[in-house]
Structures are given as structure tokens and as C-alpha cells.
């Protein structure tokens, strides 16, 4: 394990990504203690509406006089919660299906992979929007919709890895010495398939934050007065061009967070996939 961390530590962009991810995680956990006006998650102060950035309000205030800096910090928790929930749920659906389809063959495996293909063939956002709307718009339906559309990515990866590994010599050898199917799958194949899954999950976290922000922006996710980044940008549109800060800073928060996960994910992938590593 050590050389892997040593190699990751030499990859400057990946370390930058790791730094951002840790920073955002800290904000998510400690947000209410860090934010200068933690009460602004819900309170409103109509006397100080739409103030430009200043020392008191570094990112300015919004249409209800709330400190945008505080709300951006407080928004980290919601964004990460949604992303984590969606990615974990997708893994719980996708990984077992991938193992099943990859290790067994026959109609079940075929069916799973066909469904995977079909779901992957529809752009995730469109399908998620349709689902979220059919489930009646709310944060929970948004998360459910995102999970129901993201799992095929994991199935595809795990399937490919399982296929590769179950044809490999060491699994043949395990079968030869009489190891049981579940033992082979969970103790030998799963750990080997894990690294691409972790890479995908890292990138998936960033991606989900982005898509969840779109849902929030369209009013299909978080509901006011939640300090949601996407929602804030949607609300800010009415106050442009006067209050540019209202729209700008939540967007920067999304940008930096997603970039952090992508950089880290790319770095991890370079470690895992030697073919790509060579070309860097």
C-alpha cells in the first residue's frame, strides 16, 4: 500500500484535489461552527438585502439579507450528503448486479447487462428529471432518481472486472482447490474489482453534486430556505445584473468542489490503470 500513497503524493493535481475534498468535508462537518452567521440558514434580515461583498459579508447578502458566505459554507453539508447517499445507493445496487452478471452466465446475466445498457443509453440527467418528476418533486425523489440512474456505471465496471478475473489463472486455481463460489466472488474477485469502483465513486461524487445542483436549480431538489447551491443560483437570477455576487459565489463553490473530486479521481485512476499512467 505504501508505494501507492507515495506515488499519489507526487501527483500535484491529485494532491490539490485531495486538499479540496478534505477542505469541503471539514466545511460540511464543522459548517455551523465556522460560518459567521449560522442562523442565516433560515433567518432573514430584510434591512440588509442584496449588500455587495464587504468585510462583514465577504460574499455579500442575498434577497432576504442572508450572508451568502455563511450559506455557501452551510451548503457543503447538503451537497455532500446528497452525493454520498446517491453514490452509496448506486454502489449497493450496481456492484452486486455486476458481480452476479459477471460471474454467472446465461439469461440472468444477459438481462442484467441489457438493462444496464438501456439505462446507460439515456442521458442521466434526462432520465433523472423524468423520474424525479414522476415521483413528485422533493429532495428524496431527486436522490432516488439519481441513484436509480447512476448504478449502471458500477455494474458495467464490476461486470468487466469480474469477467476478466474469473477467466484468470488464479481464479481457475481457486476453483481447482475447491473454493466455493461465494468465497471466490467476495474474497478474491470483489477486492480486485474494488479499485476501479473507488475511482468511479470518487468521480461520481463530483458528478452527482453537479447533477443534483441542476435538479436544485430547476426546483426539483432542495426546497427553500435550505442553503442549497443550485437553488441559490436559481433564486439569484431575478436579481441580475444588480447582485452579481448572489449568483457568482454558489457557482464557484460547486466548481471548486466538483473539481476537487475530479482531480482526486483522475489521480486515483492513474494509479489503478497502468495504461493511462503511461501516457501521462
Amino acid at each position, binding site marked *: 500500500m505504501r508505494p501507492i500513497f507515495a506515488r499519489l503524493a507526487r501527483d500535484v493535481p491529485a494532491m490539490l484535489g485531495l486538499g479540496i475534498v478534505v477542505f469541503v468535508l471539514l466545511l460540511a462537518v464543522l459548517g455551523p461552527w465556522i460560518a459567521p452567521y449560522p442562523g442565516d440558514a433560515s433567518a432573514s434580515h430584510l434591512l440588509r438585502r442584496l449588500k455587495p461583498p464587504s468585510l462583514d459579508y465577504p460574499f455579500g447578502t442575498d434577497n432576504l439579507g442572508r450572508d451568502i458566505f455563511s450559506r455557501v459554507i452551510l451548503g457543503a453539508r447538503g451537497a455532500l450528503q446528497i452525493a454520498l447517499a446517491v453514490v452509496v445507493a448506486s454502489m449497493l445496487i450496481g456492484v452486486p448486479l455486476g458481480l452476479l452478471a459477471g460471474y454467472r452466465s446465461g439469461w440472468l446475466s444477459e438481462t442484467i447487462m441489457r438493462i444496464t445498457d438501456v439505462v446507460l443509453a439515456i442521458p442521466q440527467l434526462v432520465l433523472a428529471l*423524468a423520474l424525479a418528476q414522476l415521483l*413528485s418533486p422533493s429532495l428524496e425523489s431527486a436522490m432516488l432518481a439519481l441513484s436509480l440512474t447512476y448504478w449502471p456505471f458500477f455494474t458495467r465496471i464490476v461486470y468487466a472486472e469480474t469477467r476478466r478475473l474469473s477467466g484468470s489463472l488464479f481464479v481457475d486455481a481457486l476453483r481447482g482447490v475447491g473454493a466455493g463460489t461465494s468465497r471466490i466472488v467476495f474474497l478474491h474477485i470483489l477486492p480486485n474489482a474494488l479499485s476501479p469502483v473507488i475511482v468511479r465513486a470518487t468521480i461520481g461524487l463530483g458528478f452527482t453534486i453537479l447533477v443534483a445542483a441542476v435538479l436544485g436549480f430547476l426546483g426539483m431538489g432542495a426546497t427553500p430556505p435550505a442553503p442549497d447551491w443550485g437553488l441559490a443560483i436559481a433564486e439569484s437570477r431575478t436579481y441580475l445584473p444588480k447582485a452579481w455576487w448572489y449568483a457568482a459565489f454558489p457557482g464557484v463553490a*460547486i*466548481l471548486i468542489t*466538483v473539481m476537487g473530486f475530479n482531480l482526486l479521481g*483522475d489521480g486515483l485512476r492513474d494509479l489503478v490503470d497502468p495504461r493511462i499512467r503511461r501516457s501521462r
Partner: protein
Amino acid sequence: MLRFVLRRCALVLPSLLGLLVVTFLLIHAVPSDPAVAMAGDAATPEQIAHLRQQYGLDRPMWEQFGLYLGKVASFDFGESAFSHRPVALDIVQRLPATLELTFASLLLSVLIGVPLGVVAALKHNSWPDYALRIFSVLGVAVAAFWFAIMLQFLFSMTLGWLPLRGDLSATMSRPPVVTGFLLLDSLIAGRWDAFGDAVRHLFLPAVTLALGGLATIVRFTRSGVLDTLQHDFVLYERAVGYSRSRLVWIYVLRNSLTATVTQIGLLFGGLIAGGVVVEAIFDWPGIGSYTVQAILTGDRQVMLAVTLLVGAVYAMVNILVDVVHGLLDPRLMGRA
């Protein structure tokens, strides 16, 4: 060649059938009663029962699926609850605007992205490469809807250089509809003023939509070229004295484009999805803003039709990608 294409088409059929099943299940596996939803909040039980009968919702599942297939085959997607017009008609009218926007942004991202990717690969591990890598990370991480709003703020509201929304100025009379594509129709009518105005309207949405694709294309072209440069034939071509520019831009690039073409295919889906939000922000009269309208008003018929359309377009793009692969790499054609 023809056999190759037909074979690819045949391979897509199961996916299309699956798509029909998924969209069908979307209506029926959802906990809420579609008839209730269609009728609206103020409907009486009789109205709901009538609707149920009208749409065959009281029949068994498989029979309903048969009905559904029949309707799809005859392009009958029902009526939009919002516009009270046939969904198919709305879509046909709005499709050209979306295609125009999609192709414009695809063109932008390919024409800029491929050369930038090649340069990044050639300047591997020097500052242009680093700059482009940072750019491609940013381009993928940026939220398109936010970027669109920032562009509007800067170029329309503050600088006043480009129009804020729509596809044509309100003061500009529309050229007669021939193809439905505004740019083409302006040209056919010889209306240069309308053409210029339409291009100005197209600019910001196309740039917004192109950004993510541009980043992806730079990235995959770069790694494709880096990969190709490792091959023995590049060394051979240098040893026998190919000119540097022809070696890179013709002989290496063509080998590297397979990965890029796959990405362009995948991007197409991304562009359609991204277009949903971008169209809504720029009031672009295409499928995307139609979808958002449908979502906001709970118009299920429209959403299903759009999902089906997008899935079908995506499948066709995949066929196209395979064909282009075959053209780029003759070895694939022989195997098919």
C-alpha cells in the same frame, strides 16, 4: 460497408426495445396513478375513470404495452397537457432549434478541442500542456447553468454585446419556414440581417454548451495522440523522413481520433442533457426548454416522448460512431 452498417443497426434494436420497456414502466411502475395525475387536482372520479378507459389503463399490463407500442410506432405521443397540442407536432417544430444549437456547440468543441488536444500532447509536460489540463478539469467541473448565467451577466447585461435570450430579436421579422432551421431558412430567403441576428443569438448558448464537450475532447485527443506517439510506426515514419506537420496532423491524428470519436458520441448525449438547462436559461425554442416546461407543469406525455426521443437519438449516434470508427480504422471493417 453496407453490411457493416446494417449489422450495427441490428445490434441497437434490443436497446431500443429495452428503451420502450423502460419508458413504459416509468408510467406504470410509479406509485401515483397516471390517470389521476393526468386529470389534475380538480377532477371528479368520473373524469378519472373516463381517462383510465380512454388510455386503456384498465386493461392488463401486456395489453397496455401492446397499445403503447402501437402508439409509438405511429408517432402518437398523446397531447401535451400544457400546450394542448399533439406532442409529436410540438417536438417536430422544436427539434430544428435544438439540432441547430447542438451542432453549433459540437462544431465549436471539435474545431477548437482537437487541435488543442494535439498541441497539449506535443507539448507534453510543459506549460501549454499544464494550462490545457487545468482548463479541461475546469471545463468538466463547471455547472453549465451557472456558466450560462455568468455569460449572460457579463456579455448581455453588463457589456451589452450579445442578446440575452431567444433565437431572434423581437424586432426582426422571421424568414419563412422552409427547413425549420432558422440559420438555413435565413440563408434560403437571402435574409442576411436575420442570419446575423440569429448567429448572435446562437453564440452564448452554443459556447455554454460547448464548454464541457471542449474540455472532454481536448482531454481525449491529448491522451489519444500521446498513446499513438508510443507506436513503432511513428518512429518509422520519422526515420524515413515524413514532414513533421504531416506526420502529426495526418498520420498520428487519424490513429488517435478513435477515442475522440467515441467521446463525441458520448458527448452528444451530454449535449442533449446539458441543452435542457441551457435552453431553458436562454429561452431557446427547442426540445430542452420544452422539457423543462413539461417538468415544471408535470406534463408526463411530453416527458415520456422526450425521454424516448433522446434515447433513440442516442442509439443512432452510437451507430454513427461505430461507422466512423470503421472508416477511421479499416481493420475494424474487416472484422464485422
